[in-house]
Each structure stands twice: as structure tokens, then as C-alpha cells.
């Protein structure tokens, strides 16, 4: 049971990251290499907001992380990505690499690269059959991830803004000609993606720790997205599950030191057999 719980929670962390990567890719054909950094900074902001409020209420840190996501998302799109439309795709990718470096330095400067574990003050509570214990934090991880994906599905499927989102991802010019402010939709994509990343960072910080090293979860998330197919949200979940399983099994059966390398090994295998990912569309590959 212990291993099942660990894998599920790890899957949640990676799935949130991968979902953000997929949304950004679909919306603007950008592969975001700063996603891990954004997640960890989101976690730090949550932590600091919690400290500032004296750790009495959860609302303050949650609001802090949400505000961070909104400001960061708008800023990255409006100040940087918007100007790169029409440039070759690798320009935007390199810019995200730059954003990642800046954020990593920001962690060093603002939080002095402390190793922090987010403690929301709930003790391990539920004893499962088979001897596993689940903390409220773990349960919250699963519930929040499921809620996020369900919300995303309902948003894209049933709301008018969601439909406009999908249309803009397909053809931004036509969307604009039908009265949709493309800049608004694309900044929203960044906000949603960073929101998911921050949530993932908080969950990760709750189970493990936040530091400049933990930004490597971004690479695990990116691998999950690539394994599942860069343009498929379903694939993001499947990819996250595969990466989580592989990592867990390596730590258990081989050597914990290798766990960082596992995503890349997986990436190489999937890319050589099915370069468009498990759920991705094959034609999509030509555009990259």
C-alpha cells in the first residue's frame, strides 16, 4: 500500500507540471523550460506568505500563490512571449531557459537557498490497510489534483471562454477576427499553467523540501508531458504516472541516486519508439 500511495502522490505532482507544459504548448507552441523553477518559486511564495500571516490561516498563503501566478503569468506573456510571436520557435524556448535561470537566482537571493519543508500543520492521520499512513497533505494533493483536472476539463468543454481557448490554440488570427482578444487568452494560458505549477510546488514542498535543487521536478514534468504527447492533457496524466512509477521502482529496486536520471532514460526510450508521445498527434511533430 505504501508504494501505491507514493506513486499516486508523485503522479499528482508531475501531472500538474505536465498539464501546464501541455497548455502552454497548445496555446502558443512554446515549450517552457522554466516550469520547475516556477513551481518551486510558487512553493516558496506560499511558504513566505504563510510565515507573514503567522501561520494561522491557509487563506493567506493560498492567496499569495494565486497572486504570484497571475502576476507572473501576465508578466511573462505580456512582457516577453507576446513580442516573440512570428519568431522561430526556438527563440521562445531559449527565453524560457533564461527565465528559469533568473528565477533560480531569485531563489538564492530572496530565500537564501534554504531547504524548506512546507508544514501546513496537519499531522499524519489516516492509517490504511497494509500499514501505510496518509497525511492530510497527501489526501489534499490527490483531491486538489483531481479537482484541477476536472475543472480544466469542464472549462475547456463547456464554457464559452474554454471554447475560445481551444479555437485560439488552433488559429489565433481567426479567433482575433471573431472578436477574441488573443493576448488575453494567451496570458490566461500562462496564468493557468503557473497556477498548476505553484500547486505542484506546494505539494512537493509539503512532502519533500524546497531548494534550488528541487527545480529538477520541472524536468520530470516535462518528461511526463513529452512521454504522454505534448498536445494531450490525457497524455500528461499518463506520462506523469509512468515517470512516477519508473522513479519509484528505481529508488526501491536499484539505487536512489539514479532517480534523477530515470526521466531522461524514459524520454530517450519513448522518443525513439513513438516520438509524438503516447497520446499525441503524429502531425504535430512536423511543427516542432
Amino acid at each position, binding site marked *: 500500500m505504501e508504494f501505491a500511495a507514493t506513486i499516486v502522490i508523485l503522479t499528482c505532482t508531475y501531472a500538474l507540471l505536465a498539464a501546464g507544459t501541455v497548455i502552454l504548448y497548445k496555446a502558443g507552441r512554446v515549450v517552457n523550460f522554466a516550469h520547475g523553477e516556477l513551481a518551486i518559486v510558487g512553493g516558496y511564495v506560499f511558504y513566505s506568505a504563510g510565515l507573514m500571516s503567522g501561520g494561522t490561516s491557509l487563506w493567506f498563503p493560498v492567496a499569495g500563490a494565486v497572486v504570484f501566478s497571475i502576476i507572473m503569468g501576465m508578466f511573462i506573456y505580456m512582457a516577453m512571449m507576446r513580442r516573440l*510571436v512570428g519568431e522561430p520557435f526556438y527563440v521562445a524556448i531559449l527565453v524560457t531557459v533564461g527565465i528559469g535561470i533568473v528565477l533560480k537566482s531569485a531563489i538564492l537571493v530572496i530565500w537564501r537557498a534554504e531547504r524548506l519543508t512546507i508544514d501546513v500543520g496537519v499531522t499524519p492521520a489516516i492509517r490504511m490497510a497494509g500499514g501505510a499512513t496518509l497525511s492530510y497533505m497527501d489526501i489534499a494533493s490527490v483531491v486538489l489534483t483531481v479537482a484541477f483536472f476536472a475543472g480544466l476539463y469542464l472549462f475547456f468543454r463547456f464554457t*464559452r471562454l474554454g*471554447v475560445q481557448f481551444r*479555437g485560439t490554440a488552433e488559429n489565433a488570427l481567426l*479567433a482575433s*477576427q*471573431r*472578436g*477574441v482578444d*488573443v493576448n488575453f487568452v494567451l496570458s490566461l494560458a500562462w496564468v493557468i499553467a503557473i497556477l498548476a505549477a505553484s500547486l505542484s510546488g506546494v505539494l512537493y514542498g509539503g512532502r519533500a523540501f524546497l531548494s534550488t535543487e528541487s527545480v529538477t521536478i520541472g524536468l520530470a514534468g516535462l518528461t511526463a508531458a513529452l512521454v504522454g504527447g505534448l498536445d494531450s492533457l490525457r497524455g500528461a496524466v499518463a506520462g506523469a504516472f509512468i515517470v512516477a512509477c519508473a522513479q519509484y521502482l528505481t529508488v526501491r529496486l536499484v539505487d536512489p541516486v539514479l532517480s534523477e536520471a530515470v526521466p531522461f532514460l524514459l524520454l530517450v526510450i519513448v522518443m525513439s519508439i513513438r516520438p509524438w508521445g503516447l497520446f499525441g498527434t503524429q502531425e504535430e511533430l512536423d511543427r516542432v
Partner: protein
Amino acid sequence: MTDILLQVRQLEVVYHRVATAVQGVSLEVPKGSIVALVGTNGAGKTTTLRAISGFLPSEDAEITDGDITYGDRRINGQLPHQMARAGVILVPERDKVFGTLSVEDNLEFAARGGGEITLERVLGYFPLLTQRKSQLAGYLSGGEKQMLAIGMALLCRPTLLLIDELSLGLAPIVIKDLMALLHRISKELGLTVLLVEQNANAALAIADFGYVMEGGRVVFYGKASELISHPDVREFYLGGAAQSETKSYRDIKQYRRKRRWWG
């Protein structure tokens, strides 16, 4: 004389800072009328329409000279969504529907609440779309895509409808029906239409006024009925000269008259 809804004066559009696509184009679209803009490939018709409906920054196109006035506002350099919200709706030549969305979602995408043009009314004009509601728009036939595109445009509450190549790739019978339907819709809803066409015959048949473009300039203009009977226009754009005497091979190979620019 009726009010002028759209006025283009001495428009000049340059792509990528070097390629001049149209030069000194002037035209007027009176309120409530159908105006046809005809001409051969590469004459600058589409660019003129796109300049009116707005360019995205990524297209790297710029209006370097002239004015576009819509109502009493100068609208040079507005973004497409700003023009769309002001009631200037373009049905583009290609990629006119969202292929990955269902027909229903396409219509929902475009719908701006309020106004007298409801979904029921649009489906009343295009009953075929009702049957295709849940299909992906990418799988529609060319004619159905065109109907969906016009339906979407209508749901955007247009005052001025810009249509680029209504007839492109469609069977003559479908073109005839669509043109007749467009005429009916514009009269019933009081829409002003600017129609860009290579198929000059079909366009001038329903238009009130016509402009002929050639090499980035307007070379003829006038009432549609006058253009249809104008000998030069007949010969160069409508196929076949007025007289029907037998010609020698040499005469057929070249135009009787030299084309002149009247702009």
C-alpha cells in the same frame, strides 16, 4: 445619396517593410449596399480587406499611407478583435472555421450575446448546419464550411461584413445559391457587404457597386450594372468581348485593347 459606412482613401500596405501589396487604393462602401471588389490573382484584393479588418502584430504588415474611415472613426492599425467588436467581420479566404472544434462550438465561439441575430435565425438560413451540429468542422465539405463561416460571422453581430472569395473552390450551383442567400441575408438584416471575388460574374450579379483591381490599384469602378456592360471590363474580367464575329487566331491570343490604369 446614402451614408458612406466605409471609406478607404489612398491606401498603401507594405508587408515585411519591403513588399508593397496595394498602392493608392480608394473605395467607398455605402451603408446597406453590397459592393464587389473584383480582379485577378495578386491584384491586392485580399490585402485591402485585411487592412480594413486589421492585422495581427505577427503578420508584419503595415498601412504606410492613406486612411480607412469606418463610420466617422479612422481605423488605421486597429487589431482584428477591436474591429470585430466594432462590427467589422471578415470571412477569410482560407482557414475560415476552427477545424478541431465541432460545428456547434464554432458557432458558440463566435456568438456575441444580444442583438437580433440569434442562433435559431442563423440555422434558419443554413438548415444543413443543424444536421452537422456535433461534427468536427474540419470534416465539412467546402460549401458547408463556407456556410458555417458565414453563420459564425453573422453571430458576431456584424454591421459591415467582409467576405473574401465566397466562391473559391465551390461548384457553380453552390456559388449561385450562396450568392442568392447572401443577397437575401444582407437585405433582411440590413447588412453592408464588401465582397472580394475572382468570379466577377457571380459577384457583380448581386452587387450594387463594383471596383476592379489590378496590380495593387483600382482601375475601374462604378455601378455593378454599368461594369457588367462596360466593354473593357467584359473583355478583361468577365470573359468574352461584346462582339461575336469570328476572329482570327491572332486576335484571340491577345487582348483587343491594351489595359490601362484608370486609378
